[in-house]
């Protein structure tokens, strides 16, 4: 029982972490709550589906093409839309929401309301401690660590990372120091969207493709990110672990209440932010910077 909970909990956490890191990054660096984030994830998944099923492209190639395409779309959206309204915090929310609905409707027009599936990169399963785990989940989990390490290295070890963190801390001063703030915002957005697209490539084969598939993950991503502290990448990872395990525990301990896993996870998030209003790592991340 315990090993089942640990392994299933870890793979559930991996999925959430992968989705949440990009969201957290763009908030941390540009103070934008990007509700379009999971819509980009959906877009990537659908593009991969199109390239593999309709054009018969090789899966790896179609993933790369899709990630590039979605990143370009994301940057365009940032330049044409988000950048113009970012001064009004509430307007950003609605604008990104409207963008998500636009992507949803475009996908609906192009693919219809059929439920589809993307095939996994590697099919089959491994047995760990007597528990079956599909390779796709292992891949997702591994990717989380690569991305965590990658973003950490980028933010801490490169010049670009320093510029991103400086912009996040104080836009005006960063600008005065000769950092091209607008360009930094765009680059951060590109990285965040690319992360969403990577999540689309890895996570979408685990779920069902529908034009509404962005909504439920969006709520969970918001919960993960708030729980961990907005803008903190470490926080997002810990938040994902907490929510992933909460959900798994609900399923294993109260099987007839498995449908409550989302509600219980959200309730846990509420309790934690009521005790720590800035999330688990909200403040420490600010200090780190």
């Amino acid at each position: 029982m315990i090993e089942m909970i640990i392994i299933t909990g870890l793979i559930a956490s991996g999925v959430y972490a992968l989705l949440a890191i990009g969201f957290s990054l763009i908030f941390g660096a540009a103070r934008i709550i990007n509700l379009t984030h999971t819509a980009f994830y959906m877009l990537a998944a659908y593009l991969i589906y199109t390239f593999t099923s309709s054009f018969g492209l090789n899966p790896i190639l179609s993933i790369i093409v899709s990630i590039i395409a979605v990143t370009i779309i994301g940057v365009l959206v940032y330049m044409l839309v988000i950048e113009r309204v970012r001064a009004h915090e509430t307007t950003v929310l609605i604008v990104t929401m409207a963008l998500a609905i636009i992507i949803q409707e475009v996908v609906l027009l192009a693919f219809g309301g059929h439920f589809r599936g993307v095939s996994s990169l590697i099919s089959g399963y491994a047995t760990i401690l007597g528990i079956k785990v599909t390779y796709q989940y292992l891949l997702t989990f591994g990717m989380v660590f690569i991305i965590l390490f990658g973003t950490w290295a980028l933010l801490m070890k490169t010049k670009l990372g320093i510029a991103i963190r400086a912009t996040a801390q104080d836009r005006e001063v960063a600008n005065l120091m000769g950092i091209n703030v607008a360009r930094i915002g765009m680059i951060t957005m590109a990285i965040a969207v690319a992360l969403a697209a990577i999540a689309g490539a890895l996570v979408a084969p685990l779920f069902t493709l529908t034009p509404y598939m962005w909504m439920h993950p969006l709520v969970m991503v918001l919960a993960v990110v708030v729980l961990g502290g907005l803008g903190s990448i470490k926080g997002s990872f810990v938040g994902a672990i907490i929510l992933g395990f909460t959900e798994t525990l609900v399923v294993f301990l109260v099987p007839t209440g498995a449908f409550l896993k989302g509600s219980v996870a959200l309730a846990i998030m509420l309790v934690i932010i009521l005790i720590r209003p800035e999330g688990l790592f909200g403040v420490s991340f600010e200090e780190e910077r």
Partner: protein
Amino acid sequence: MKKVIIGAIIPLAVCVVLLVTSCGGAAPGKVVKIGVVGPMTFIQGEHHWYGAQLAAEEINAAGGVMVGNEAYQIKLVKVDSNEIISVTDAANAIERTITVDKVDFIVGGFRTEAVTPMQEIAMDYGRIFLCCGSSTKELCDKVGDDYDRYKYWFRVTPINSTYLGKVDFMLLGMVAEELKAECGIEVPKVAILAEKLEWAEDIVAAAQVLLPVMYGMEVVGTWRPSDTATEVTAELTAIEAAGAHIIFTTFSGPVGIPYARQWGEMQIPAASVGINVEAQKEGFWDATGGYGEYETTMNTYAPGVKITDQTIDFGERFVEDVGEFPTYCAGTYEALYVLKDAIEAAGTLDSDAVIVELEKTDYTGTAGRIVFDENHDVVWGPGYVTGLGVQWQDGEMECVWPPADGSWEGVVYEGAVTYELPPWVIEAWAP
């Protein structure tokens, strides 16, 4: 100042005018208008529409509907209810089609939360509504409770939730027999995996009580994931650990796809049987990447299965027009024929007269013989509409129930095959 006032009035006036005129073109004589209501961006609504369109084309080509001595052409009105997303939208859409499009009859409807207000509105206006999508029994029970108000309501497809449950159990029984024959399991262990929705409550409650008592099975647990769950890995892991031989499923939502895929990919050693609405669709095989093989579910149609003389022909023409095999929502096809017969018998479009004739309906359609009970609900049973059990075998949706050997009331449909246990299940439990 004046400009401002004019600026305010003009848009309002334009709105009002547009609302009134946008679709209110007066119908020429000798046309019977039928509103096809469904979520048109989804497969359910699409099939509502294509089914009705197929029937309308055939009827019109054959001279239309004879009302008295006059031939009326059928004119379909496509009504996008958007009911999966917005209940308000659905209610507005149906009122608009009644008052602005002025349709004479309505067919379609899919999701119960939206069909309920749509039913109320249709009853307010006294429009006959032939439901082709929602299985909730209560919708028809209202006819019995308050006949004068709800008499305009009929259900053509699917069979109601109680009957769905019955067929569901027979499918389960069939799988248990197979397990006994192949693996020598006398008391199969059953894991109930049903989404947490009201329509599944009765099936789950009945299964928990009846399986041990009447069917000699052991229930090892009940898992109720959310209907919006994205995957069920944790549930499947727990089910495997519980040592289940059979997974008894009840799914109507998109999670039916990842469920079947994971079940096949991880080779969970338990036969999967029950209701999985996603597995009723042709796209299921691709959506699961082929891992949906051996998934077994109830259905209404199956390719190449001859339920009545009309079934095969209908299926082929539907595939020709639409490019995919019909789901039960395409039952609007039958609904139009049932309606045509009733109108012709009544000799008028008047609702009350047509209702009298609809109640006498005895029509053999594509999914079986349609007769309405006293609640205006389609009757289920041998010789009526029975429903099918289908299993995915080698990329094909095959009919496995009623059994090909005629062991259920002697009902056998041409094209039925025998049920197959997944090989990994046999391997896991064979003595």
